[in-house]
């Protein structure tokens, strides 16, 4: 599934955060290993990195299995990243066709994401597919357990088309998730007594995982009811909160940077919020709100931003330089708009960072610069004397007009 908010009516269940902060995604097989630690049943499976390992894993599972590409992207099924195989030949062929290649799904860009691991799992006889998740209810400021009988589907779609099919139980952080809440939710899932008790244990484990590992989202979609009436987590999604990773050194090692856009990964490593977009106007802005506003204004004058970029509040000259270097590394960028409102970040620092990046990259792309606030005059002076192709603007809209008129 994609990474957007889940909303039911006017209630927003956070599955993502504002631009400028982040979740760390992990692979399904890593998430399932965490599930197992918290007593949540998962299918028997092995991770394969070569076709030979995949064949051996299929053999270990009795000759039939499901192979699942391990990528940080939803839509794997539609993209051809999941296959049920009935023989080792099938397994070998599928694995060879994916491992070391890029997988394109409806949620990736045209380039796709590299596949280096396959999860090979036993097949389960499924009678129904449920949905189970823990995230934070932004309005109530509380964790919330979400369940639905409509598992296996995109949950945002369910929330839009049939909001009553999703049931939410807020969780008090002192008390934790209580048995009566599990009973209430299990009741919505039409389970028999045994499965309801099992669902209660799974919910309780899922909540403990959410809290103890500092997650922003844990999700089981689908949670299958097997033909035998057992429950099993067929998929697993665990998003770890970046801001809390310092408490979990082990989890930091679960990161897979091959799954990220190169520029975005570079930016992330520097704690710069950067999102690659389709246009040609590179944007250096401080503050997520001002960055979005700048994009809006650029669009207003008929131009197109090449990126969202928030260089952050307390940026140093080096950080600004790194941000500008990332902007200039984007081959789509042929001009740059700077919109800095000095607060914690001082304009003179920003100016020096810009110059440093232009020098280092040898770039000569034209700049429209709008600066205000702390140390604005020294900042402008530094840029004015730098020899760069700078047009100064007093307002956002002036800057947008100026940059759009560059030939």
């Amino acid at each position, binding site marked *: 599934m994609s*990474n957007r*908010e889940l909303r039911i009516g006017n209630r927003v269940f956070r599955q993502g955060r504002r631009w400028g902060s982040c979740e760390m995604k992990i692979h399904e097989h890593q998430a399932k290993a965490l599930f197992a630690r918290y007593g949540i049943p998962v299918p028997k499976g092995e991770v394969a990195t070569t076709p030979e390992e995949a064949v051996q894993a299929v053999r270990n599972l009795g000759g039939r299995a499901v192979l699942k590409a391990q990528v940080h992207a939803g839509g794997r099924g539609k993209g051809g990243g999941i296959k049920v195989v009935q023989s080792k030949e099938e397994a070998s062929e599928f694995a060879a066709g994916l491992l070391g290649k890029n997988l394109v799904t409806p949620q990736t860009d045209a380039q796709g994401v590299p596949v280096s691991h396959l999860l090979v799992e036993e097949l389960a006889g499924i009678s129904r597919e449920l949905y189970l998740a823990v995230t934070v209810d932004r309005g109530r400021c509380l964790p919330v357990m979400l369940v639905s009988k409509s598992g296996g589907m995109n949950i945002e779609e369910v929330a839009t088309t049939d909001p009553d099919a999703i049931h939410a139980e807020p969780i008090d*952080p002192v008390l934790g998730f209580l048995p009566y809440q599990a009973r209430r939710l299990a009741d919505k899932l039409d389970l028999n007594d045994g499965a309801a008790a099992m669902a209660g244990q799974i919910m309780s484990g899922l909540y403990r995982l959410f809290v103890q590992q500092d997650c922003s989202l844990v999700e089981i979609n689908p949670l299958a009811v097997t033909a035998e009436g057992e429950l099993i987590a067929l998929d697993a999604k665990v998003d770890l909160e970046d801001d809390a990773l310092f408490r979990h050194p082990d989890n930091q090692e679960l990161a897979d940077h091959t799954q990220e856009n190169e520029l975005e*990964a570079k930016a992330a490593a520097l704690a710069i919020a950067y999102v690659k977009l389709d246009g040609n106007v590179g944007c250096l802005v*401080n*503050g997520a709100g001002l960055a979005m506003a700048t994009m809006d204004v650029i669009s207003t004058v008929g131009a197109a931003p090449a990126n969202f970029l928030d260089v952050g509040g307390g940026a140093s000259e080096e950080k600004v330089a790194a941000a500008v270097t990332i902007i200039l590394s984007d081959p789509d960028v042929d001009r740059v708009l700077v919109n800095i409102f000095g607060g914690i970040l001082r304009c003179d620092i920003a100016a020096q960072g810009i110059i440093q990046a232009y020098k280092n990259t040898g770039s000569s792309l034209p700049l429209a610069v709008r600066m205000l606030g702390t140390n604005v005059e020294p900042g402008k002076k530094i840029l004015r004397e730098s020899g760069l192709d700078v047009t100064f603007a007093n307002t956002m809209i002036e800057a947008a007009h100026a940059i759009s008129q560059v030939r």
Partner: protein
Amino acid sequence: MGILIDERSRIVVQGITGREGGFHAKSCLDYGTQVVAGVTPGRGGQTVEGNVPVFDSVKEAVEKTGANVSLIFVPARAAMDAVVEAADARVGLVVCISEGIPVQDMVKLSQYLDKMGVRLIGPNCPGLINPAAACKVGIMPGSIHLPGRTGVVSRSGTLTYEAVGQLTALGIGQSSCVGIGGDPIIGTDFVDILRLFNDDPATDQVVLIGEIGGAMEQDAAAYIKDGFTKPICALIVGATAPPGKRMGHAGAIITGDSGRAKSKVKALRDAGAVIIPTPADIGETAQNLLDSNK
């Protein structure tokens, strides 16, 4: 008048001996704010920025200086501790500039502050300012502000400065400006601030700056419809953020799409707010609103 802070506000800066804490403590002092104390554990007994005494604990700072507002600059990992220390020392208003507090810590913190009856602004916010009282508790550039009768509230930092800059350029002064912060869980939301503006005799009208993501603007719209009695204009930014794009490690998520921005705009318009068409039109819209309510 103005909201939350005024001439009687006495500020203690937690983390005053750090680079940012020191810089902004001085900037607040220069603006005219009564910064009466700083706190850095282990640095008690020093003085900084002229004659601001540093204490080892907020409790001591409050006892010795009568501080009643805290401004926090400590690193994210120490921020929850700093907020609770301020709350336990009976500081009634805590402004947390620090960013990067884990969401689950904020869950706990918001429970605790509710219990204690302490108001938190932020975290990850620029703070607030009352120009007429020459009282600035935050990191905004003081020079762009002008005393006046328009209230400003925003989820953003720099975009708030942008809004204020446009107002001041047209001679529209501000009664109070509050940046409530952009995190998923914050201490004080739009509705809280609108209620205060509603009751503030020094505020004639309000500029609200929202953005995509969350439902706080919809909540604000509901309150504007039901209980807010003053003219208000509103901007929602992020309309051009592309929907549903899967982000890398860095940028997390584009949480909204233009439809989402549209739904916020619609809710606010239906509630009677005047919509600011683009981020370049904040000042002009506020001016028109003033003129039409003369």
